[in-house]
Each structure stands twice: as structure tokens, then as C-alpha cells.
């Protein structure tokens, strides 16, 4: 298990470890959108036998790894505007078609970063809310509500040691009740926001107990660490 020292001094998963954990829960044969930043790392842990097809919202299915050398083509970039490559069986389409694909619920999973996620699955990841910051949303709001399942990857605590999994988001929302799973350095959380009252279940911990996670988040977390792995 890769480890890193978190803000509390705990040794949880490092970024690669979080990416690997998220990758493990992506079902075989899925169509997946990986948000810019941390989520992009998930692609390193997807294997050919997983038959996962990557979508980039700027108009492509079948995106390959980052391009290098002669493979760099300024007309072939990902959502983060980084040159990428094309896999056999790729396809291109325009922006309205690309977001129709997303909004229409055709992507199986999207993986996003977050400032905050609420117990009810609300996501905040586009705007700090600070007046001096220039807001930019890109495809975040479309992605958040579009995929069949939205995964979030983040550190559990911010630099001040405050939990980013919260009762109610204080940052401006990206989407309401849209997050299904949260991958952090200290634990993995599964959110059931479709229930009468939302529940948050801890399915794995990394150098933290469920009780400690309850204290850190102030949430009545359910302990699912002894359960069998969810079906892929």
C-alpha cells in the first residue's frame, strides 16, 4: 500500500494509492470520464483487460495516454488541453454531441476532484466562492450530474485539517446529490443519497479507524469495512 503523511500526521494512501483504489471500482467495459488534475491519474491503473474506454468532453471516445515526441498533435488534446493519443476504435464528435453523451447518462463513471462533498452527495469543486477568484466551471457541472456514477477523489482533510466530507457544503455547489463514492487518503466512502435519509458508509480505511473518521467528519458514518467488496 502506498502511503503519505496527511495533514493530521496520519499515513494514508498517497495520490497514486487513491487513484488505484478508484480504478479498482471501475467496472469492466465501462465508459469513463476522468476529470482534470488528480482523477487523470486513474488511467495509469486501468489495464487493457479492463476494456475501459475513456471519454474526453472536448469530443472523443477512445482517448489514449498523453502524447510524447512525434505523437504530439495540437488538434488532439484532452479536457485539460494536454496532447493525448488515440486508441484503435476511437471516435470524434462535436461538443453538443459530447455533452449529450454525458448528460444522457451514457457514461458509466466519471471521476472528479472536489473541494467538498456532502453526506447527501452534493459536490463542490468549481469555485472557492472567494470574491477575488475568477470562477471557471468548464464541464464540471455536466459531468457531476451526467454519468451513471460519479466518483470523487480528494484528500479527506484540507490544509487546515478540516474534513472535506461534510454535513452541508459551504463552497458553491457543482451538483446536487450526485456523488456516489468518495476516495480519500484515509478512507473510501459510499454514499446512498437516494435513500429516505442519506447514509455514508465507510468501506475501507487507511491508518484511521471508523470512529476516528466519525470524529474527523462529524458524520454518523456506517461501518462497512467488514463487508464483501461491492460487485464490479
Amino acid at each position: 500500500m502506498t502511503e503519505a503523511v496527511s495533514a493530521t500526521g496520519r499515513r494514508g494512501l498517497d495520490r497514486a494509492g487513491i487513484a488505484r483504489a478508484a480504478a479498482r471500482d471501475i467496472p469492466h467495459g465501462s465508459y469513463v470520464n476522468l476529470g482534470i488534475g488528480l482523477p487523470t491519474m486513474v488511467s495509469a491503473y486501468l489495464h487493457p483487460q479492463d476494456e475501459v474506454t475513456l471519454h474526453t468532453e472536448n469530443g472523443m471516445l477512445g482517448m489514449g495516454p498523453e502524447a510524447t515526441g512525434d505523437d504530439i498533435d495540437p488538434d488532439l488534446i484532452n479536457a485539460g488541453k494536454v496532447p493525448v493519443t488515440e486508441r484503435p476504435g476511437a471516435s470524434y464528435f462535436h461538443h453538443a454531441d459530447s455533452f449529450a453523451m454525458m448528460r444522457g447518462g451514457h457514461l458509466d463513471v466519471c471521476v472528479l476532484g472536489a473541494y467538498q462533498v456532502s453526506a447527501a452527495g452534493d459536490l463542490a469543486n468549481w469555485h472557492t466562492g472567494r470574491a477575488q477568484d475568477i470562477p471557471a466551471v468548464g464541464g464540471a457541472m455536466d459531468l457531476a450530474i451526467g454519468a451513471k456514477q460519479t466518483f470523487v477523489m480528494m484528500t479527506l482533510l484540507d490544509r487546515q485539517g478540516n474534513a472535506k466530507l461534510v454535513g452541508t457544503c459551504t463552497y458553491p455547489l457543482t451538483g446536487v446529490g450526485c456523488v456516489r463514492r468518495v476516495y480519500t487518503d484515509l478512507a473510501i466512502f459510499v454514499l446512498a443519497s437516494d435513500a429516505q435519509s442519506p447514509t455514508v458508509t465507510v468501506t475501507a480505511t487507511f491508518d484511521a479507524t471508523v470512529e476516528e473518521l466519525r470524529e474527523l467528519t462529524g458524520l454518523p458514518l456506517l461501518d462497512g469495512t467488514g463487508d464483501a467488496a461491492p460487485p464490479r
Partner: protein
Amino acid sequence: MSVVEIVTAPFDAVAGIPDGATVMIGGFGEAGQPVALIEALLERGARDLVVVNNNAGSAEVGLARLIAADRVRKVICSFPRQTDSWHFDEKYRAGKIELELVPQGNLAERIRAAGAGIGAFYTPTGYGTLLAAGKETREIDGRHHVLEYPLRADFALIRAHVADEHGNLTYRRTARNFGPIMAAAATTTVAEVTRIVPAGDLDPENVVTPGIYVDRMVAVGATSGARDGALHTTGAAT
């Protein structure tokens, strides 16, 4: 999960379509009509189907046979009445089949909206006509519009031209018609195609329906009368 299933018999391609299912069937007249899949559906025996198609069958082919065999409870279409739509005409006059008549562009846009996750849309088409009777309207920028809702299906049966093994599809000429939008609007999309080629053999710029929209495929060869292979030998500029 989403990997396309390639089967060798149309009968297998239409497995699991239950009685009462809503089934979109591609095609405008016979162009793009998935005749092999419809024949297989007929053989499977599902009843009480709600069929979405531009027409209501012609002569003794495909959809007309499904209607003749009393498998269709309701047709949602734009143009049921043709000189050779005798099976539909007979069932309709006998009160044995329901008809929801939709202007062709609203039909296409409702199907597109279903695939695109649009909750509803305002269209000027049909305003002030019988086909908008009872529907919500709104004046926008001085123009009257009717509110129309998405049209979804449990299954879409479509005909395409060449597929690759990831389910990416191309079409031939005007046989493209409803295929691409129906593929996106159904829970399960089944495509009959002329042939299936390895991934990488279709130019990614020229894929019309990305494989994400296709669940099952069966290769059935060229449509009777339609030529297979390259249509435009001069089309080398791209």
C-alpha cells in the same frame, strides 16, 4: 458491462425483448429498416409492443409483418398512411392498433432529447395545430412554441453499414436517418450491420454512432440491392 456483444444470429440479437416493450425501429420506409432484426423479433413472439418508427410499415416487409401478426399495440410515428401500408390501415380501422401521430421533426427531436438527457424542449413545430392540442405552449421571442418531452425506448433495433468490434457504426446514404438518434435513446440498442471489422479499421473521424450507444450487433450482409464497399472512390481528400 458496456462492451458490445457480437452475436451471429439475429434471433440472439433480439433476445430479452419482453411483451409490452417500447421498441424503436430505425428506417425511413425501407432505407435503414433492420429487416433481419424485425423478422427475428417476430420469431421471438413478443406482443403488445409499442413501436416507434417514422412509418407504420409498408407492403409485406419488416414492420408491416409485425403489425400484420398483431404484435404491435401502438405505433408512434409521423407518417403511417402510405399506398402500401395496408396492414396498418386494416388494424387501425378495426381499432386493433393505437396511433400517436408526431410531426417528423418533433419525433426526431424527442428521440434526440431522450438520448441527450434533455428534460423537455420548446419547438415551434405543430403550434396551433391538432397535433399540439392540449399541450403546453409558450411565446418566446415573439414566436409560439409547444413543449415536447423526450421519447425513450427499452430497445432500439437499427440497421447500420460497417461496424467495428467496439460497436462504432457507419451508415449508407439516407439509410442513416433515425439510427444514430435511436441508438442513444434506448436502454438496449441492437444493430444489424453489413459487416464487422477490427477496431482501427474505421476512421475515427467518420464514425457516426460511437460504440457507447451500441449493446449488441449482428452482421447480416448487404441490404438487397445496396452495394457494399467504398461508395466514393474520389473521396480521398480527408
